[in-house]
């Protein structure tokens, strides 16, 4: 929902308890700035999250916020959306929250094309519980429950989201705030279930990504790959090749808009 009056700030009064330098600050700044610029009304906007470091973001906004329970942000957001078509509903949660315990809900909200925007703050770990492998952790990731290395390939969230029939699917990263901003704008404008995977590594438990913005090469698929993002099958195929972190090319992070129905 847009404000009638002056642009209003989305910064909340509560100070985040995130670690110094947590990449979530970057996302928060970009998102809040954008919502204000786009004239969203905090009094008609709801941030819905689950539980995790990432999910605390719903407590740090001046908008309405629901810090719910672990894995269940999407059903709650669905209820808000279905009962009130006049408020904006953003889901912001972690990779563990959305894709481990919450995977089933994701499938169905996407399938039903519920008109919400879902942001996954994907740090490829369960940060809040101190580093267990999440569904997006890399192969061989040593989480505390998998000390010998996680033996599962990471879930490719963009491919998965397309396959679940999300109507907008993109990936961006806190390493490139400009691209992130561009992507979020597109996602917000889209009507229907939109999903943005935001690679935002954890400074405390994924230190290998820092200070290595340069080591990782961020590739924008919309510039480098030939595919039709309006075409389901073309998009799916493109997304399925763009896994991160991939075993073959761990240093390449493919970002971009993969699908827009």
């Amino acid at each position, binding site marked *: 929902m847009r404000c009638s009056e002056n642009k209003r700030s989305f910064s909340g009064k*509560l100070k985040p308890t995130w670690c110094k330098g947590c990449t979530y600050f970057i996302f928060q700044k970009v998102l809040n700035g954008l919502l204000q610029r786009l004239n969203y009304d905090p009094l*008609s906007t709801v941030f819905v999250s689950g539980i995790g470091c990432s999910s605390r973001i719903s407590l740090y906004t001046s908008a309405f916020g*629901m810090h719910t329970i672990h894995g269940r942000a999407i059903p*709650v957001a669905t*209820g808000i959306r279905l009962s009130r078509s*006049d408020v904006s509903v953003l889901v912001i949660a972690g990779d563990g929250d959305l894709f481990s315990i919450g995977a*089933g*809900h994701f499938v169905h909200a996407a399938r039903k094309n519920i008109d919400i925007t879902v942001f996954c703050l994907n740090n490829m770990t369960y940060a809040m519980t101190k580093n267990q492998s999440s569904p997006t952790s890399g192969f061989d990731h040593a989480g505390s429950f998998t000390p010998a290395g996680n033996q599962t390939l990471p879930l490719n969230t963009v491919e998965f989201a397309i396959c679940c029939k999300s109507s907008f699917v993109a990936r961006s990263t806190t390493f490139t705030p400009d691209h992130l901003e561009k992507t979020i704008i597109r996602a917000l404008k889209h009507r229907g279930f939109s999903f943005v995977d935001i690679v935002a590594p954890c400074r405390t438990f994924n230190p290998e990504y820092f200070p290595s913005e340069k080591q990782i090469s961020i590739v924008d698929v919309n510039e480098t790959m030939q595919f039709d993002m309006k075409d389901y099958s073309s998009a799916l195929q493109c997304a399925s090749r763009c896994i991160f972190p991939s075993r073959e090319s761990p240093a390449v992070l493919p970002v971009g808009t993969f699908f827009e129905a």
Partner: protein
Amino acid sequence: MVLLTLPYTLKITGCAGEGVICAGEMLLEALSRLGFHGAAYREFPSSIEGGYCAVTIQISDKLSYLPVNNIDCLFVRYIAAVEKEIGHCRRGAVLIYDDSSQCSEDELLALLKKLKRSDIQLIAISLIESGNDPGSKKFYSSEILGVVGRFLSIPLSNLEYTVRNRFQYKNLSTLQRNCDMVSRGYQIQQGSHYSKLPLQDKKPFEYEILDGNEAVARAAVSVGCGFFSSYPITPSTGIGNFLARVLPARGAVSCQAEDEIAAIGAAIGASFAGVKSMTATSGPGLSLMQEFLGYASMVELPLVVVDVQRPGPSTGSPAQFAQEDLFAAVFGSHGETSRIVLAPDSIGNCFNLTIDAFNCSEYFQCPVIILSDSVLGLTKGIIPVPERQDVRIINRSVVSGECKETYGESTAGVSECKDIRGELNGEEFKRYSLETAVAPIPVPGYSSVSCRITGLEHDEYGNPTDSAEMRTLQQKRRMNKLNLIETMFPSLVEWDYCTDEIDFGLIAWGITVAAAGSVVERLRSDGFRIAALYPRLLFPVCLNAIKRLQSMTDHIIVVESNGHGQYARLLKMYADVKPHSILSQTGSPILSDTLYDSCVRIVKGCFENEML
């Protein structure tokens, strides 16, 4: 022509898929049109096809439905049904049997002789097949309706009208076949056994035929429920079936969720959005909802959860009856949550109690669990349904906004709007103010302040806190806010007084109240002085009422249908009562006779002890 006395009980039996339940429900409709009260209690197997299936129609001039075993007239197609039911037939009962099927007169006579039931009056009739159901099975409903209707001397026009009503959405040939069959059934000769029901003067049009599930759903609509989400599960599915048809037409939403966790989650989301919301389930679903129930208590959002109980544990016996989920409803979530548990005690009360449930939930800002059961839920009754304007509706207190149109009055039911901008003076809004039991709720898109809510322990502003003192204060407020419920909602406790000095007190809840009521009458006519207490408010325990009963007698009997004596134990825990428990676990509601005998046994025991 025999003039029958009320209540009169007629049972139609058959196999699942043959249409006996449909026949029974049509009969109820026809009776309703004649001004009768009554109910149609269904029995069915847990498999989709085959298995024993029956419907018991109780015809009455009073409102309440009473589980009975005194059958006045039994309709059978298979001899096995006679064996099963004969014990429940009163002396001189009428047995209408289909001699075109597996029942021959000789066999029947032999069986009755063996069972020493020569009192039974036999009526032979011959059904023909009436139409095919989708699974290409025999479907006898209209024909049976004709037979039974003729037996009771109900005008054929009424029966035909009923059949037309029932099959109005079917294709024309199906409709026509059913009309043919009802008159065919009507014309079958039944010898000289026709009877007649006493004339009624009830105004039929203030009443509807609803089962308890439909009554709950109907009430939700009346009270302004704007969002319903659920996941199918026997025996609660009827609530969803009803609301899926009715809500969308009113601009409200009915949503099939992917599971029970999503169902309650969506309802909580809608409630946060300012809309009255409800979900319905049965035992296994209640277990799955425990985490979100705790969340709703913690963030203090209104929410109504209907649990249509069936015997457990686990998948248990989905097609049978029990009152076993009270403990789970009261104590199921981790930690200590503030919630309200209510139980309707008649089909009609399913309506009123659901209104109360919404009202309590809106008023106290917490989840309310309605403990219905499979018998209330699936038994059709002729019940009074008040007009919306006669329904007392309480809407949550919300923070008002910038004088936009009041948001969705009919669905969200937002009232008592407080514009708190003036009061705030730039300070933050205290969603969880310690100075009041409940503060108004900000609603997105409507209120002048926003709020953030969390299942973490929080301070008055709703911000997470680690302070043990704040936690204690908030926990206390969340618990204590419910203290007023008994005074605020007097209709949640029902009394059947006697004198102030009584021999003993009887407590029953849920559908068990029906049997209790009739037993109380009987015991009183035996000369006992009894007061009966029928709490619909199960938790928090209605201490005022209990204390009053305690002041009248030391002998308190609690009757319920479970193995632990759950309500009796709640009373021990919270009210220092030491009740005598009468427990029943037969898969059906306790019968008056059984309850009567148990009461007499206990009372005699007490008196004997006191003599010593």
